[in-house]
Structure formats: structure tokens, C-alpha cells
């Protein structure tokens, strides 16, 4: 059987890659996709540990995470659409209205 630490390692790598995507990509959509990747990494770990301890809770949490992610993606993409309408770009480096 595969030790749970392998899943942990895989999840960590995927999570780091997702975080890296958030940090280095400028395209808002890709940043968004990276966030989904991070969520999936977390989901993977949830399920792995749920299996390890023989508890269903982890899977239930994953179900909720998927539901929330769906809602989040819907809202997030709607925001991106709205921003694109007003600014004609999805480049995060061109969006700095939060600068004081």
C-alpha cells in the first residue's frame, strides 16, 4: 500500500505549484485556476487522511469544499467579467486601484 506520506508529499507539491501560479502569473484567470489547484491539493490530503483514519468526515468536507469552490468560481469569474468590462484587461499588473 502507498504510505499516506506520499499523498502528503504530492499534495504539498501541487499546493506549492498552485501558490507559485498565483504569485507569478499575471493573467487573472490563470491565477484563479491556480487557486483551484491549491484547493484540489487540499482536497487530496483530506481524502487521504480520511482513508487513513477510516473516517468519512474528510470526504464530507471535500464535498463542501467542491460546493464552495463552485460558488467561488462562479462569483470570481463574474467579477473578472465585470472588471474586464470596465478596464478591458484581465492583467493583474494593470489593476492597481487598491493602491493608496
Amino acid at each position, binding site marked *: 500500500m502507498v504510505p499516506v506520506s506520499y499523498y502528503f508529499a504530492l499534495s504539498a507539491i501541487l499546493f506549492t505549484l498552485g501558490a507559485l501560479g498565483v504569485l507569478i502569473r*499575471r493573467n487573472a484567470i490563470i491565477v484563479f485556476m491556480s487557486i483551484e489547484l491549491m484547493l484540489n491539493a487540499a482536497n487530496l490530503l483530506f481524502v487521504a487522511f480520511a482513508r487513513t483514519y477510516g473516517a468519512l468526515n474528510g470526504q464530507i468536507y471535500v464535498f463542501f469544499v467542491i460546493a464552495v469552490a463552485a460558488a467561488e468560481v462562479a462569483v470570481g469569474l463574474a467579477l473578472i467579467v465585470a472588471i474586464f468590462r470596465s478596464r478591458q484587461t484581465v492583467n493583474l*499588473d494593470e489593476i*492597481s486601484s*487598491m*493602491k493608496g
Partner: protein
Amino acid sequence: MQSFHLVPWIVFLPLIGFLLNIAFGRRLGERGAALIAIAASAGAFAISVLQYLSLNAHPEGAVVHLAEWIGIGALSIPWAFRVDTLSVTMMLVVSGVGTLIHIYASGYMSYDVRYKEDPGSYTRFFIYLNLFIAAMMVLVSGNSYLMLFVGWEGVGLCSFLLIGFWYNRNPDGKKGLLNSQAAKKAFVANRVGDFGFLIAAFAIFWAFGSLSFDEVLPQAGTVAPAVVLLITLALLLGVTGKSAQLPLYVWLPDAMAGPTPVSALIHAATMVTAGVYLVARSAPLFAAVPEAQTAVAIVGGLTALFAASIAVAQTDIKKVLAYSTISQLGFMVAAVGVGAYVAGMFHLVTHAFFKALLFLGSGSVILALERAHHPLPDDPYLPKKKKKHDDHHGHGHFDPQDMRVMGGLRKQIPLTYWLYLIGAVALAGLPPLAGFFSKDEILTDALHANPLVYLLLTAAAFLTAFYMGRQIWLVFFGEPRSHAAGHAVESPPVITAPLIALAGLSIFGGLLNFPGWHPLTDWLEHTLRHDLAHATVFNPGVAGFSTLLAVVAIYLSWQLYGRQPLKERQPDPLKKRLGRLFTAMENKWWVDELYFAAIINPYKRFAAFLADKVDWDFWHDWVHDSLIAKGFRNLAHFLANPVDLGVIDGLANGLARAAQGLARVLSLLQTGFVRNYALVTFLGVVLVLGYLVFSS
């Protein structure tokens, strides 16, 4: 029958009269106002008589508690009336003589207000007079030094008001401010004395813990003599102010600016004797320190002689009496000083009789001349009886108080003459009139206690007889030295009736303490400590010598003034005999001038110096303008420019600039780029995780 509880009415009856006359006096007219005032005073006299009768049955007296006045912690000063033989003696004199003078004044002031062309002041006079009686009653009836002081100040106020009664005139009747200045002088001189009284009161409270006579006097022997000496000397200062002794007597002659009834009531019979009363009341204190007693006796003796010498050379009929009063007060003060408290009180009473008589008589004389000189068209007591006098003498200067314009008046106004003569003989100390007995008693006691005082008083007695003789010869004998003197008009009965009563008292007053019988001694014994109230043994030597001196003095005055009566505008014959000495006496030993030179003018210069140099130049110009204003301006400039603009604003601006700079630096962090923020978050995650991993 015991009626001590009525004693507050001796104060409240005059006070009611005072208030009634304030409220309704003008509407009631002269008769009504005078009646109210006389009734108030007579009521007080009646109450006093009731107290006298009660005391005969209960000689130990009583203290009537009326109200709580001051209560602070342990200090409790009630308004309590002390009814004992000493205070009732004073009450009787004050209200008795006061009532007679009220009656006299009701007639006299009718003329005075007309001559001063201010009839509205008639009521005002009686308002003041009733207020004076009330204040004087507070003084003599108070059971503590503080209540006594209230009365003391009250009579001082009334004295001030009445001396300045014709406040817009001079003593000669012309418009001016000299009367007001005389009133002011009296007030200021009294203030010096009051200062002493207050110091004494403070010291008494400090030493005895109380101001009540009941508690202070019995403890007199228990306190350190030095403290009692301080108290008594401070009291002596108060006495010299109120009773016109050296060195504060100067106000009393000027006080003659008041109307004559005032001179009689306040400045002869009652108020000025308050000092004597105070010493008699404080007898246990004075008895405890012989030094203080000696001081009192010397002051009294010196004053008696000094004032008598001045009286010899005066030409104003009232001034002679004024200095005579000072001299006689000196006798009383000397008497209480040598421990002869009964003799002092005895002389106080008899002096009240004959000096009031003399003052009122002089008022009658003055009035007689005034009416002859300038008859009133509406003379209130002679309704259109006499044909109008040709008034060519009504113009020009005429002083009805100047004895040099009198003469021969015994033919014009015989009643006044006889009454005045009785007073003069009583004052001169010829037997068997009142003055002889009281003065003789003082002289006898003084001889036993202090020969120096005896000599001073004897010399004063000699001068007294001389100046009274001189006055009688000048005023009533010889030929009239003016038109007015030749046509003098006898005063109406309302004026002469009180004189007759007072003359009777002057004649028979000696019976009060007749040698061998001495009822006054027995009477006062109930109040004074037994060792302080001793009956004076009649000394034929002293009595005979003083009588002889008086006769010699009167003979001398006859030699000078009687045998060859003074002519019009003739200088005083004594001037040739005495030369410079007479000039000195005539000018009152230049005491006023001395006070001006030594105290008042330096004081004024000092005040001017304070005002001009210290206040204006130094304080205002230099301190205020230069130091404070300019300094403040400089300081303000300094504060405004370097401090405020530089430091404060610099600090504020600096802070702002620093905050701005910091914000500028920090705002670099806020790029507005989401990814930068995310990076920082990620950094935080890495750091926290690193800490968790590597720290365990």
C-alpha cells in the same frame, strides 16, 4: 417685682423710634417726629428705672439671653444683656440725660434747621439721635467684649453722622466741608482707638478662650501678667480714642461742629464716657497689673491738665466746654486708673449732669444771640409776637459762639444765666454742688494712690475753676459787646425746662455718693469686686485745699475779666500777663499742627510717594509697562516666533512630515497589485510553517 426680662427693650424701643421716624418721620412733621423720638428715649429710661427697681430687690443682677449671635465650634457669642449695678447706672444716665436732651433738641433744632435753611433735616436729627441711644444701650448692656464693641462702633457711627450733621457747611454756618472733615477726623481718630480695642479683644479671646464678662473677669488673676498688661494697654488705646484722652483727644474739639444737643449728649454726657465704663467694667483686669493702672492714671492726669490749659485761652463758648470735657474725662480716667472705680463712675454721673447742663446752656446762649442777630420770620416759638427787628445786623460775619461778642447777657437772659451759673459752679467744684463731691473723691483717692496724679489733677482743677470763671465773666457780665448781645432773647420753655431738670441734678447729684453715706459705693459693690469698690473716706484737707484753689482761681478770673469788663475788640488781658504761654494755649499747644507735621503730612507725602512714585512710576510705568507689558510682549514674541513657529510648529510639521515620509515609504508596500499582497501572505505562511516545523 423682677423685670429683668424687659431689658432688651432699652435697645429695641429707641430702635423702633428710629425705624418709625425713618418710615414716617417726614409725614409726621416736626412735632410728631420729635414726640416719637422722645417717647422712645423716655421708654428706654422707664425700662432702665424698672431695672433699677429690680436690682434693688435682686442686687446680684442677671444675664438676659436674647439670641445666639455667633456660634462657631466651641466659640459661642450670644446677644446677652447684662443687668448689674454698673450697667444699670450707665443705662440710667444715658436714657435719663438722653431723654432731657431729646426734649431740648426738639426745641433747639426747630431753630437750627431754619437757620441752616434745611427744615427737612429735623427728622434726620432725631433718627440719628434714637439710633445713638440704641447703640449706646447695646454698649452698656452687652455681656461680652464683642457686644460692647458692637455698641462701641455703633456710637462711633452715630457720632460721625451727628458731627457731620450739617455736612455741607462750616462750623460758622457758611457753606463748606469743614464739618464733614471734623466728622472724618473723629472717625479716623476713633479708628486708631478701635484698633487697640480689637487687639485687646483678640488677646482676651486668645488668653481666656472667651469674650464673655462672666468668664473673663473672674479669671483675671490666672493669666500671665504680661498678657493682661498687653490686653489692658490695648484697651487703654481704645479708651484714649473713644474718651478723647492724650494722644487721640484731637477729634473732640472739632466734634463741636455738630449741633449743640449732640455736643451735650454724645460728646459730653454719654459716648465719651464709654471708655471710663470700659475700664470700670474691666476693673479685675486692670487691678491685676499695676503698671497698666499707672499708665491709665498718668494718661488721665496729663489729659486733665493739658486740656484744661487749652480751655483757658479759647474764645469759642463751645470749645471751652469741649476742652473742659476732655479735662474732666481725664479726671475720670485718672480715677479708674488709681483704682477709684466708684469715684470715677460717680464723677461720670455728675459730669453727665452738669456738662450736659453747660452745653445745653451754651446752646441756649448761642440761640439767644442768633435770634437777636437774625430773627426768624417764622419763629416756631414766638408766633408774630414781636415786631420785626431791623436786620441791618443780619448781614456780615457774625459768630454767635464767640464769647468776645457776648457780655452782659445776665440781664437779657436771666434764666439761662442762673442755670449756666449752677453748671459752672458745679464744674468748678465748689461745695455743695455735685462736682465738688465727685472731684474731691477722685482727688482724695489719687493722693493715696499716686501723688503725681494728684498734683496734675489739682492743677487741672485750679484751671477748671479759672476758665469757668472767665467764661461766666465774659459771657454774662460787663457790657454787651455786640448789638445781638444787647438784644438777646430768652429761649422758650421747651429749651429751658430740661436745663432746669439738669440744674436740679447738678445741685443734688452729690447726694449720690455723699461722704459717710455713699449709696453709690454700696450699689456698685454688687458688681465690682469688693476690694475694688471701697468707700472713700472724706478728707477735709483735700476738700478744703481744692475748694480754696477754686475760690482763688475764680477771684483771679474776676481780677482779669470781671473787675474791668472786656471792651469790644479788646484783646484778652491774660495775653499780656502770660505772653507766649497764652499764645501756645490759644493755639492748643499746636497739637493739631504737630500731628499734621509729624503724622498726617508725612503720611500724605508717603501716600503721594506711594501713589506717584511707587504706584505710578514704579508699579505702573516700570513694572506694568516696562516689565510686565514689554516683557510679556517680548515673551509673547519669543513664544510666537522661535518657540511656537519654530519648536511647536516645527514639531507638529516635523511629525506630519515624518508621518508623511513614513507613509510614503510604507505606501510603496501598498502597490495595489494583488499578487504582491498574495506574495506577502505566502511569505507569512512559509515563515509560520517554518517556525512550527523547525522549532519543535
